[in-house]
């Protein structure tokens, strides 16, 4: 349901940013990564170049590297099959299919992703085609949907004090750079706040949580 609303607004806002109907739907169909798509489209809409948009999407999707690596050992089949199954990793189905002991239910993962995929691509299609008929999307406040969604995701990320500090640092960097850097660049530079993760303390905590996950509960 929330996925459907987001997909609709993605379709409408991608059109606003200069994507054609077909491009908006193809984007959802072959990339299938909501936050990366939102991030890159908003950079294009703000007048940022393709390079900044791609870089932001790549950083946003970098979380799939450790996520799909974690699922890897639970996938059956040869390298090609495993690579294909890896494509089904998205946040919600990854979390849903985790058994809590470091292994994953691959059928649940693929099934949940298939449903999410249908909603995502279908919603984008509807938004891209019928969005024009609404008139000016700004008069419906649709431009607030992306940042509000990101805000929601962000609040879920702020469980640790370190994450809150990194978020505050990222915000400060981005706001300082808005008046002086080209569109898209403030967000990219703000990502450097994550280098706080290189501190000894931060690494020690990751190690601890990994050990806790690996232990039987």
């Amino acid at each position, binding site marked *: 349901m929330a996925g459907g609303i987001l997909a609709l607004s993605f379709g409408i806002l991608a059109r606003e940013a200069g994507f054609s109907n077909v491009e908006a739907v193809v984007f959802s169909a072959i990339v299938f990564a909501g936050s990366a798509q939102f991030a*890159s489209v908003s950079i294009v809409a703000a007048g940022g170049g393709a390079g900044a948009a791609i870089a932001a999407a790549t950083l946003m999707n970098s979380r799939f590297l450790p996520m799909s690596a974690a699922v*890897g050992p639970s996938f059956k089949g040869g390298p090609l099959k495993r690579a294909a199954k890896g494509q089904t990793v998205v946040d919600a189905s990854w979390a849903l299919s985790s058994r809590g002991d470091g292994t994953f239910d691959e059928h649940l993962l693929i099934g949940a992703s298939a449903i999410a995929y249908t909603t995502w691509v279908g919603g984008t299609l509807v938004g891209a085609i019928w969005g024009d008929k609404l008139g000016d999307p700004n008069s419906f406040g649709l431009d607030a949907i992306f940042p509000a969604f990101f805000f929601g995701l962000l609040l879920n990320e702020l469980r640790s004090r*370190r994450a809150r500090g990194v978020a505050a640092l*990222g915000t400060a960097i981005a706001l300082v750079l808005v008046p002086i850097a080209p569109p898209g660049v403030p967000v990219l530079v703000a990502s450097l706040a*994550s280098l706080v993760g290189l501190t000894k303390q931060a690494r020690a905590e990751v*190690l601890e949580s990994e050990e806790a996950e690996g232990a039987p509960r």
Partner: protein
Amino acid sequence: MSTPAIVIAACCVITAAIKAVGPVALGGRELPTWFTSVVILLSPALLAALVATQAFANGDHLAIDADTAGVAAGGLAIWRTGSIIACVVLAAAVTAGVRAL
């Protein structure tokens, strides 16, 4: 190629590669701790920057306007209800309402 086409093609290839590397190449081997640690913190850094730039920036200057109010309302909704639907619907409604004033 147009900007959207370049963005879509590059995102497709890069995302597929990111998702394939773990299951194929790592085969159960663990990623270095420093890497995981940074990636975990990338989300709050990027999300905060995206929220800040979209809620407070109008082109190259900072401004508090209708969408700032909408995003704040959405944040309040998710904090109180935990519902992402309530969050995005309220954000759009408040933004549209303030704009219509």
